[in-house]
Every structure is written in C-alpha cells, then in structure tokens.
C-alpha cells in the first residue's frame, strides 16, 4: 500500500481560472509541515541523546550511593527533589525486589520495600493511582503491582471499578503483579459477585500468580461462580489443584459446562487425587472432544500401568487430536511398549495402530520396540514388513478418513484456545 503521489497529476489544472492561490498556500503549508517534521525528528533525537547521557551519569552516581540510599544515610529528600533521580531509584528498587523474590531472598525484598515506603515513593504512586486518570493512572497501577506491598491492594482493587476498560486491565495486571492472596480475593469478589469484565487471559494469568501459594482460596468462589466466571476460575484451578481438592474437582468433572470439565481433567492430572484414574476414565468418554483431549493429556502424565487400557481405548477415538495425544502418551511408556503395541493390534483399528507407530517413532522408541518383538537376526526384515504393511494401509486410511471427515466448519470464536 503506497502513498499515491502521482507526480503527473500535479499538472492537471491547466485551464484558466484554476485556483492557483490555493495551490500556493498549500505549497507554503506543506513546506512548513516538512520543516516542522524535520525539526521534530532532529530535535527529539538531540534531546533524547542528552537525556540518556544525563541519565547514565545519574545512574552511575546513584549506584555509588546505593548503600547510603538503602540505609537512609543519604536522606530521601536529596534524591527525591529531582524527578530523574526519583525515577531511577524507583526502577532500581523494583529490579532489586524482583531479583530478591526470584532468588527467595525475602529479607532483602522487605528491606527494599521499606525504602519505597520511607522515601515516600510508594505513597506518591498510590496517590497517582487514586487521583489521576488515563495513562498516568495505568502506569501507576502497574508500578504498584511491582511493589508487592499489601497496602497497595485496596488502591488497585478500587481501580477495578474504573469505567475505562484499559484502566481495569492495568489494575488486574497490577494485582497479579503483587502475587498476594488478598489481591486474588479482590479480583474474585468482583468476578463472581459483580461480573468484572476484563480480558479472560489477563485475569487468569493474574489469578494464577496470586493463588500459587494458596490455591484453596479459589474453592469458595468456584462453588458460587456461574457461566464464564466458573469457566475462568476452573481453568486457574486446573493449573494449581492439590490432592485435597478432590471433592471440588469431582464436582467440576460433572459440570454441565464442557470448558469446566476440561479444566477438571487438567486439575486431575496436576493434583492426582486418589480418584484421578476413575474420573479421568469417565472424562475420556466425554461427548466434547477437547474434554477427552484434556483427559488423555492428564492420563499421559500419570505413571501407572492402569492408564494403558484407557489410553488404548482413546487411540480409537473419532477425533484425530485425541488419538494423536493418546499415542504420544503411550509412546512414552518405556518398557511397556511391546505389550502396548500388541494390545493396540488387538483393537484392529488402523488409525490407532498408525498413530501409535508414528508416535513411537517420533519418541525414538521404534528400534527398542522391534528389538523386543522380533529375533535380532530378523529385526530389519520385521521392521520392513511392518512398515510396508503400514504404508500399504495408509492410502486406504486416507480414503477412509476422507469419507469420515465431516465438512470443515468454523468453530464459534472462543473455542480456539481450548
């Protein structure tokens, strides 16, 4: 897509009485526009260069005084007077806190947070988040999230009520950044009770971050939640479930919403409660393919010989992805491969056999398999024979598959991420 400049068209007005004056004015305005643009580009470059040079010098100076800043021997007023210094110290504190959290150095994180508190940086950000609007408010909300301070939670939660959807998203991100259970509670209160409307994935990510340490706080909300909120919370639970949540997972597995059942399958794979195998055995027969897929993936993560017959059954599933994931799971069953293949052959299902052989090959287990099922002297021959049989059957399978395929129809939006 290019700009239509069309130079020759500039010459089109040739008849008498053309608006020559208008064109002259247009030329003048355009040249002024060009000059302003050039001035802007060059001026901005120059200013930015100066700014970064100054910033580098200040970073160097502040780093030299860093211990003094942290201990308070360099009074906060001395650096808070200058907005650039303030900005640099805040960023250095945030980075330090993030590194301390990542390394599990909680004392250091608390020490840095105290500097934020005593220097007044934290209250400035809280003021910005409460009193300002627009991008400045959003920036403050995200910065507050980085502090992980419990006192910022009410301010961030207040912004969840904002009329502007982008501010609500920033508040959700800020709350997620704190990683605090109290922040999760605030979000879930609004999701379940007041129908908070923000993009699902952002909210899920934030909840995931905040509930990591205490996933049980999800349970009471999940019991109350309906519709989309229930789907969303169950998805989070699916990542964080623990064995003692068995009762709730059981309820989710019987939920009328397929997305919730799929999350239950995921939760079973993560938490592996006592009844996991039994429930997953039910879910692999679900009427929705993505629930069956989730159940198969969860079964694949459980190292137990009892999952093998269930997965072999899923190898004959009508859905291609379910078959492939079942085959993928079976292919990683190591020493049991030969029994698995024998059992798959017993199903007399071409799709199943094909899927399992492909996946075993992908997993690099084909040599092991043939070594086990045939005489070492005849291994090559056995391999060739089996592969030849498979290849010969492939064309028939393709034809059969074409016949079995339903016409491709679009899924309604929203299912793609399932």
């Amino acid at each position, binding site marked *: *897509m*290019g*700009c*239509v*400049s*069309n*130079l*020759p*068209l*500039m*010459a*089109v*007005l*040739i*008849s008498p009485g053309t608006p020559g004056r208008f*064109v002259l004015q*247009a*030329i003048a305005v*355009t040249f002024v*526009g*060009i000059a302003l*643009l*050039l001035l*802007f*580009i060059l001026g*901005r*470059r120059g200013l930015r260069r100066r700014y970064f040079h100054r910033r580098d010098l200040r970073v160097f100076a502040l780093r030299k005084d860093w211990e003094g800043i942290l201990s308070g021997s360099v009074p906060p007023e001395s650096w808070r007077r200058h907005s650039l210094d303030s900005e640099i110290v805040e960023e250095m504190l945030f980075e330090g806190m993030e590194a301390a959290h990542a390394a599990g150095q909680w004392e250091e994180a608390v020490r840095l947070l105290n500097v934020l508190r005593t220097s007044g940086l934290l209250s400035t950000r809280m003021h910005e988040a409460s009193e300002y609007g627009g*991008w400045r408010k*959003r*920036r403050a*909300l*995200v910065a507050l999230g980085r502090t992980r301070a419990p006192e910022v939670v009410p301010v961030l939660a207040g912004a969840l009520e904002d009329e502007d959807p*982008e501010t609500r*998203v920033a508040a959700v*991100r800020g709350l997620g*950044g704190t990683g605090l259970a109290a922040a999760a509670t605030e979000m879930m209160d609004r999701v379940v009770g007041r129908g908070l409307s923000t*993009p*699902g*994935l952002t909210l899920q*990510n934030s909840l*995931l971050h905040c509930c990591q340490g205490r996933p049980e706080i999800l349970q009471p909300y999940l019991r109350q939640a309906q519709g989309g909120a229930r789907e969303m919370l169950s998805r989070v639970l699916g*990542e964080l479930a623990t064995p003692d949540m068995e009762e709730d997972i059981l309820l989710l597995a019987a939920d009328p919403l397929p997305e919730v059942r799929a999350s239950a399958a995921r939760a079973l794979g993560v938490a592996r409660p006592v009844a996991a195998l039994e429930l997953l055995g039910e879910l692999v027969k679900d009427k929705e393919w993505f629930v069956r897929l989730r159940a198969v993936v969860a079964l694949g993560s459980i190292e137990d010989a009892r999952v093998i017959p269930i997965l072999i059954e899923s190898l004959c599933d009508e859905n*291609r992805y379910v078959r492939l994931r079942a085959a993928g799971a079976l292919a990683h069953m190591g020493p049991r491969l030969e029994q698995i293949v024998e059992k798959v052959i017993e199903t007399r299902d071409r799709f199943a056999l094909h*899927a399992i052989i*492909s996946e075993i*090959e*992908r997993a*690099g287990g084909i040599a092991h398999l043939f070594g086990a099922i045939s005489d070492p002297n005849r291994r090559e021959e056995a391999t060739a024979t089996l592969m030849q049989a*498979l290849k010969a059957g492939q064309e028939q*399978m393709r034809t059969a598959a074409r016949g079995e*395929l339903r016409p*491709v*129809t*679009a899924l309604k*939006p*929203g*299912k*793609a*991420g*399932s």
Partner: protein
Amino acid sequence: MLHRFISISNITLFVYYLASNLIYLALLIIALFASLRHRRRLASIRLERMRTSPLAPPITVLAPAHNEEKSIIESARGLLALDYPELELIIINDGSADRTLEVLREHFQLRPADVLYLPELHSAPVRGVYMSQNEPRLLVVDKEPGGNKADAVNAGLNAATKPYVCVVDADSILERDSLLRIMVPILADPRRVVAAGGIVRVLNGSRVRDGQLTEVRLPKGWLEVLQVIEYLRAFLIGREAWAAGNMLNIISGAFGIFRRDLVRAVGGYRTNAIGEDFDLVTRMHRYLLEQKMDYRISFVPDPVCWTEVPSDLRSLARQRARWHKGLLDVLWPNRDMLFRRTYGRLGSIGLPYMWIFELLAPVVELVGYTTIILAAVLGVLSREFFIQFLIYGYAFGTMISIGAVMQEEITYKRYNDWRDVIRLVLYCFFEHFPYRQMYLVWRLQGFWQYFRKDFVWRPMKRIGFHGADTGK
C-alpha cells in the same frame, strides 16, 4: 471537443489527487494516535510473565521454503529460538530444486516419520514428513512444487496441530519476542481478535548472526533505502490506520498470525491466488461479516519481522508487478462486497479506497501524463500553474514520507545511527524521480500481465542472511 475533454479530465484528476493526499494525511494522523495508544498500552504489559505462562495459547509457526539452502538453517534456528511458551515449527519444503531439504536433514538429523497427514486443504502432493531427532518441536513437510506460497502454507496447515498458526517467510527474521508481541491483542481479547499482522521491515544492510539480528543499519543501495521508506509508510501509516478502523485487509505473508480453525473454515489459502495474503484476509472478512460475527483483525506495529527486499531493478520490477496483479486478482472477484451493507465499513470505505487509490492509481497517473502532453501540444498548458502544482505534489509526498520516518522515530526508533536517519530523511526528498515513474511502469506491467493471464512466478535474486550486512 478535445479542449473540453482535457478540461473535464483535469478537474477529475485534480479532485482525485487532492482526495488521495487528504486521505493519506488523515491516515497519518490516525496512525500516529494509534501507535501512541499502543505504546502506552504496552507500558502496562509484562511480557516476561507471558513468556512463562501455562495459559498462553500454543502456536504453530509455518515457514514455507523454496530454494532457501543459503539461509534455511539460520532461519530455522532463529524461529526455534523465539520466545514463546509452546511452539511448533513446520518448515514446508516446496519442491526446492536446491539442497534445502538436504541441509535441513543434515543439520537437524531429520528422519522420515510416517505420520497421519490428512490433506483437508488443497495442496500439491506431500512426498514425506520428517521429524528431527535433536529438535522435537520441528517438523518438515516435503512436498511437490506447488508453484506458489499458498500451496505450501496449505500443506503446513494440514499438518499443524495448534490453535493458532503464524505464517512467516523462511527467508525472514523474526525478533526474539515477536510472537509474544503479536499475541498481545489476541491475549487481550481472544474471543474477538481472529488474526493479527506484524510489521515487516527491510533486512538489507543489517547484521545477522545465528538467525538473529544483531545490528540494524540502513542498506547502502539507493533502491533498498527507497524501499525502507515505502515499507515504513505502508506499515506505520497505512496498516496501522486501517487496522484502527478494523478495515485491515492485508496481513503480510511474511509475518501474520491467524486462528487456525478460521483459516480452515474459509478453505485455507487460495492456491491460484497471486496475492495470497491479501486474498486470505479479504475472504476472512467476508466470511466473518456474512456470519455476522463480532471480530477484529489487528495490526501490531512492534513485533518486527525483517525481510530481504530486492536489491536490483529487475527483481523489484517483478515483485511490484506481481503485487499489482495480486491486488487486481483479489479485488475483482470480491467486487460484490462494494457498498453492500453486509460488509460494513470494509465494503463502503476500505475496499473502495483500494480500488480507487491503489488499483487504479497507475491508470489515473498515466492519464495525467497524457493530458499534460496533450495540453502542451494544444498550447493550453499553464506553465506557471503546472510548476506550482508540481512543487505542491512534490512537497506533499515528501511530507508524508517524512511523517512515516517521524512515526518510526517517535515509536520504535530502530535506526540508532544518526547517519542512517539523515540518509533516510534525505531519500524522502529524492524518491519522486525517477523511482515513482518506474513504479508506475511496473504496476502497469502488472495490469498487462494479468490481462494476458501471465501468472508465472518469477523468482527474486537473493543473497541470503550471510550477505545481509553487505547492504547489497
């Protein structure tokens, strides 16, 4: 009678030209606001959290490759090194006559895999599917030559297993966080956003190591620098602004992400399309509008894809003629979308713009040249006004180009070297002659080839990534 004809055509052309300039100015202003909004939105996003999120939707990257032996390994390594939690890379070897498959086989220890491949979307026959023994995320589909990229992408779509597919050119380089960035609008609104395009920029002149861009520099050749300006104008102004109104109908074939179920629903890429990327997005719009779905097709200006552009006139002429053929090839079959309520803003604003100011522009320009000559011959050419208008047109075109450079400066600022910026700005003054006239000829050639049904793919001369730092 002839005088009257010249007079009418002149007035028509004057209005056309004025409208074209004003529209582009409006697009520049819209794009400026859109990119500033995007920048501010990005400030509240922590990409590193997305990078590790188990909730990020999986993506299949499809990279069709035809005779890419020089750059395929670096390209594949670059794609596999992309930051994204769950990624599958499918390289489709589209019947390469060189050693593309062999170099892949040697480097990634490929072995034939007898996987189930269902040809749901039309493509030339697949000869084999290979899996890597040292890179489990890689799958190589080797197929008969299909003669075009669409055919290869369809084969990749048949093999893809993830809910989103990202189509890239195997000879392009994606920045490491490109996938995370292009997913931003989708993650923000996965129910509505069905596709997103990223910005494509000129690789020539920059330095590349291990499939990653290490230094961004302006190319040395004049032809390539002019293309840099064109790309900035097209992406940072055109696409940004059209996407702001949900009327974006081109997602570059070099870098775009789509919901896989939707691409399949519209039948995948049209294998006989000349501009397959434009064709796909237009059919997606049509399908979604006919289904009365609430959707968005977004453009994200910061996930950068770097691509090699033609460095010689012959290759550039072929590319531009093909683009124009592609435009006609898509607009003509979709002419029923024009001014129909079902197709909303796209049918009443987006597509008419494409018809009037993109497709027909070379014809109008040609008529303009003709009337100047005629007027001069008949002695009715007002020399004074001619010069005034010439200056105005020159200045306005330059202003728009500098506006695109300014957009780049305000927002993404990839050219760090002062000399590069000064050269870029200087070239904005020199692109009107003779480059524009050559561009007119190439586009007219595109028309001519289309009407002669000359749809033969003519390859572009490439130097590969190894030569990317030479600027040649």
